[in-house]
């Protein structure tokens, strides 16, 4: 029976990882550099004058948020590029003519994104140890949550990469929506500490729930219950899967 092409999914997975390896220098150096800069500025310079938040040192407090900032950006960009480029250059013909369906394609792409996300997280956390002392309270939950978030945002990037019909469009959503929302998502402060209306408004930002969730896995503290964060992330994941299943079913922007 060929109802699922496991080798096909595996090939896509391997190739996506290979693609990252080709630009390994850049994929590693850029997050290491960015994170270091954040730690120097926010962690050491500003952080030195900050009170601990909920009993966590300010330098350590911002780690989950910074991690989220880089993970969301890198994963979305990487994944949107991963599908946009083959469309742009025409090499997508091979994927479309192969005996692989939406399941194999997503497993390959998303699995690779989750793997890359974990590697990236390890690099960032490694860099962070150079600047601050911290211990992760729920390490397995942290790994699971990082994988869940990268999987979700690689799906999101996948949708962007199919939707975009120009390089401008490809970059616009991460630039105009993702980055601002992540910045305002409680990376650098606890949302509960925001005055009055701002605290309520901040919860309209879905990324705040992700940062809060990741911070819970790190330090056991959070702005909202971890279950709310988890529920929201799974909801987003399911939504993206639904959209992609629809795209494959109708062939939108993939098959004329």
């Amino acid at each position, binding site marked *: 029976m*060929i*109802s699922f092409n496991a080798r*096909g999914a595996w090939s896509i997975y391997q190739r996506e990882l290979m693609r990252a390896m080709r630009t390994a220098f850049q994929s590693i150096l850029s997050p290491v550099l960015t994170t270091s800069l954040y730690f120097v500025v926010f962690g050491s310079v500003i952080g030195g004058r900050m009170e601990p938040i909920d009993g966590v040192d300010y330098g350590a407090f911002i780690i989950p948020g910074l991690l989220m900032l880089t993970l969301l950006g890198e994963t979305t960009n990487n994944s949107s590029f991963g599908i946009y480029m083959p469309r742009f*250059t*025409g090499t997508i013909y*091979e994927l479309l*003519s*192969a005996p*692989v369906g939406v399941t194999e394609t997503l497993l390959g792409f998303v699995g690779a994104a989750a793997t890359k996300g974990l590697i990236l997280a390890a690099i960032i956390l490694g860099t962070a140890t150079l600047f601050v002392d911290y211990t992760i309270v729920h390490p397995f939950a942290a790994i699971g949550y990082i994988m869940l978030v990268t999987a979700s945002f690689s799906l999101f990037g996948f949708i962007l990469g199919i939707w975009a019909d120009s390089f401008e469009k490809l970059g616009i959503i991460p630039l105009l929506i993702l980055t601002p929302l992540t910045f305002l998502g409680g990376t650098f402060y606890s949302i509960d500490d925001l005055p009055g209306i701002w605290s309520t408004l901040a919860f309209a930002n879905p990324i705040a729930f992700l940062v809060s969730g990741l911070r819970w896995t790190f330090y056991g503290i959070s702005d909202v219950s971890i279950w709310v964060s988890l529920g929201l992330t799974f909801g987003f994941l399911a939504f993206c899967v639904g959209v992609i299943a629809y795209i494959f079913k109708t062939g939108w922007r993939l098959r*004329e």
Partner: protein
Amino acid sequence: MSEPILQIEGLTKVYSGGTKALDGVDLEIRKGEIFALLGPNGAGKTTLIAAVCGLVRPTGGTITAFGHDLATDWRRARARIGLVPQELSTDMFETVFRAVSYSRGLFGLAPDKARIEEVLRSLSLWEKKDSQIRELSGGMKRRVLIAKALAHEPDLLFLDEPTAGVDVELRKGMWEQIGALRQRGTTIILTTHYIEEAELMADRVGIIRGGRILMVDDKDSIMQRMGTTEALIALAEPLNELPESIAAFPVTLSEDGCELCYRGGNGQGEGSAEVAALTKALIAAGIDYRTIDVRDSSLEDIFVDLVSEHEEEAA
């Protein structure tokens, strides 16, 4: 009669812009043959291939490959089909070997280095196995695409304009490779607008234009049915009238009476024999001539005739 490997019925494709690229195409491809789809640019050749290979969604009609309906049982069908696209689209930064290995895996086969080596060697790419594809020449890139399409050992191979933009020498190499594939039992559908290519390679030829198949037949019988021999005989002295012995041949006399034009035969040598008989009859009738220019009409002439006929019909 060999069994059909691919059956297309009533295939229609209207692009979102409203272009009707395919207009009720019926086609049957037999196992083991080389089928040439011949037609001018924009005829719908690429669209036809794309519909079979899953790159475009048909607007109507059915496609059955190896007995599997492509609308439902596409996994099984696609696993046995290979495609070499018209455009040279490759992952420029990938090495040749890895690109070809990837294709094999994507189509669900276990890695097999020996098999990939064999494919690369047969396409004279083995020396380049570790080169990035962007470093290769155009002809080599095209061969990489062929290697990728062959990596999963397809039973049915589509070659969309395999020799477009390929120089004469490489084109010959390509023909040899296509011939070798057929030897192995691979069924091949190629598109081309080089008529000589269809004439040289194909067992059967389908002529497509405006999204419709105008005719499909064995190449030989097309030649036989429509092939003619043409002879232009320049007479030494102008003639007013043809003697009976000459008028019995399918000939016409030019208005100034200086040139005799023969048109006949069946593309199988009958024409040239008749021209020989004609020259004897001319001498017997005491008519002298200066030159004879004989040529067989090619598939090209047939093609041009057929296409312009259809244009007149349409007008």
